[in-house]
């Protein structure tokens, strides 16, 4: 998956597991950028009675690098606290929840937002309410209205939401992790099975999202609202993370614990699928603990991705040119670690210099597309991945094709990719019902009552 359960340690800590990060110019408010970071992979909507929630012992972070040094100049921190109205019932709710202040809602979460900008800390939101999880028609009868109540305006033109959302990332998990057996092409795979449609494995699951809409002028290094895509000030790097306190002492016999010490990063995510499918098993936990500024230590994984070696083996005779491509993949390094310089793709750049850092790089001067293409830049839509990432972007297809060699001609015009490189996909596309056209852009989660297990 994009970054769901992608490393051994974080797969055992779902509350802190950063699954997807998005950054895009808000399509209905183009003077702003929306950054979304998801946590808690594969929430089954019926997972009660203790429904999913953020960790009170986790610090969630959205980082912005606006001067190309790989370090965050701006960080938005989110810390949560859970309040229980009645500890003498096992119920999440004791009646219908018709508003986020309903006394029927027994277990609720609130959060504080702190902005750290150039070293200056400022709390910009306190005791902001999350919505409940979507339980079912008896408990959360008007879920859309409930969730809308949890969209909060902050000062300075910022808007924030934190709570359960429908998973926006689509992928055929069962096929990809079955030795890359992409169903639309599996007749060509070693398995030799008949071709089939892709299966959207995540389509009913939920995640917990933190979404923040910010005026562009708050994100640039000089306070300007960028309008010229060619200028470096138009480009920001974005990634998200989660941190836990260094020490936890569990008290025997009473179910409580103490956390002490500084915050230690346990999860991070810029570009999708990197720690998932680029970084090797032995380095995955360390990658999650490192800041992007030190990512040159992992560059060899981007230069020589294991999947590029596997594709010609798994699909005999389909990728002969890829099989002979042994040079370091400067195309992948540019797309994922430095940004794409001017002159490579006409009218586009998101280059942040030679410092290698895994970040979503968003050129904020590029306006939202009137007719978005889910495969983004390689489909001629410069408003999409890898120019930031929109909620509906088909990052699985984009990265499969890039690794298969489709983007190598960007750095070596004499290379002619295998025809299959432009076609490879897991056979899925965005389903519009998963999204909404306004903030927070990810759709309302399915209710537990209305979800049939494994109906996909």
């Amino acid at each position, binding site marked *: 998956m994009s970054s769901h359960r992608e490393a051994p340690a974080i797969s055992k800590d779902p509350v802190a597991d950063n699954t997807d990060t998005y950054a895009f110019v808000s399509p209905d408010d183009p003077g702003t950028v929306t950054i979304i970071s998801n946590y808690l992979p594969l929430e089954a909507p019926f997972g009660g009675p203790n429904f999913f929630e953020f960790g009170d012992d986790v610090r969630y972070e959205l980082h912005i690098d606006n001067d190309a040094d790989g370090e965050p100049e701006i960080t938005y921190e989110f810390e949560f606290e859970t309040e229980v109205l009645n500890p003498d019932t096992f119920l999440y709710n004791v009646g219908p929840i018709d508003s986020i202040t309903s006394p029927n809602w027994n277990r609720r979460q609130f959060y504080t937002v702190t902005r750290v900008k150039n070293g200056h800390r400022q709390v910009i939101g306190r005791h902001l309410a999350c919505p409940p999880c979507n339980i079912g028609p008896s408990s959360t009868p008007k879920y859309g209205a409930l969730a809308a109540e949890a969209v909060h305006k902050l000062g300075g033109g910022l808007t924030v939401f934190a709570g359960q959302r429908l998973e926006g990332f689509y992928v055929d998990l069962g096929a990809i992790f079955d030795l890359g057996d992409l169903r639309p092409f599996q007749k060509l795979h070693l398995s030799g099975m008949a071709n089939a449609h892709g299966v959207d494995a995540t389509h009913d699951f939920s995640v917990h999202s933190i979404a923040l809409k910010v005026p562009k002028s708050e994100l640039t290094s000089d306070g300007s609202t960028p309008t010229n895509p060619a200028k470096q000030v138009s480009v920001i790097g974005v990634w998200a993370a989660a941190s836990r*306190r*260094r*020490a936890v*002492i569990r*008290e025997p016999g009473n179910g409580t614990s*103490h956390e*002490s*010490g*500084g*915050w230690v990063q346990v999860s991070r995510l810029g570009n999708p699928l990197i720690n998932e499918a680029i970084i090797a098993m032995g380095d995955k936990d360390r990658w999650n603990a490192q800041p992007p500024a030190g990512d040159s230590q992992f560059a060899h994984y981007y230069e020589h991705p294991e999947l590029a070696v596997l594709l010609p083996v798994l699909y005999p005779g389909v990728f002969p040119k890829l099989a002979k491509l042994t040079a370091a993949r400067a195309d992948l390094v540019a797309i994922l670690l430095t940004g794409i310089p001017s002159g490579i793709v006409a009218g586009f750049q998101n280059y942040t210099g030679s410092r290698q850092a895994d970040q979503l790089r968003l050129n904020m001067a590029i306006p939202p597309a009137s007719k978005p293409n889910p495969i983004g830049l390689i489909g001629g839509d410069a408003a999409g991945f890898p120019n930031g990432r929109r909620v509906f972007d088909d990052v699985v297809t984009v990265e499969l094709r890039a690794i298969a060699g489709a983007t190598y001609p960007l750095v070596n015009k004499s290379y002619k990719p295998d025809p299959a490189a432009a076609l490879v996909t897991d056979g899925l596309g965005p389903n519009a019902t998963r999204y909404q056209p306004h903030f927070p852009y990810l759709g309302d989660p399915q209710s537990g009552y209305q979800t049939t297990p494994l109906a996909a």
Partner: protein
Amino acid sequence: MTDLTRRGFVKNSAGAAAGMTVIGALVADEADARGAPPGTEPVVAYVSDPAKGEISVMTGDRELTVHDRKLAARITRAAR
């Protein structure tokens, strides 16, 4: 956690009066910073490498690294 229990925890972690000195300084510093009396937050002492004498002392979200071979040795002995 009661105050008594907290003190007991510190004693068990440090195992010596010298430990209390170092840890007490951090607690007092923390108390000064927050305007609260000493001892309101638990203290954790972590000896990552006894041979180097490096001790991480943590309270709240603060952490101090102390280099004290004798203290590290005493804590290590207390733990065995």
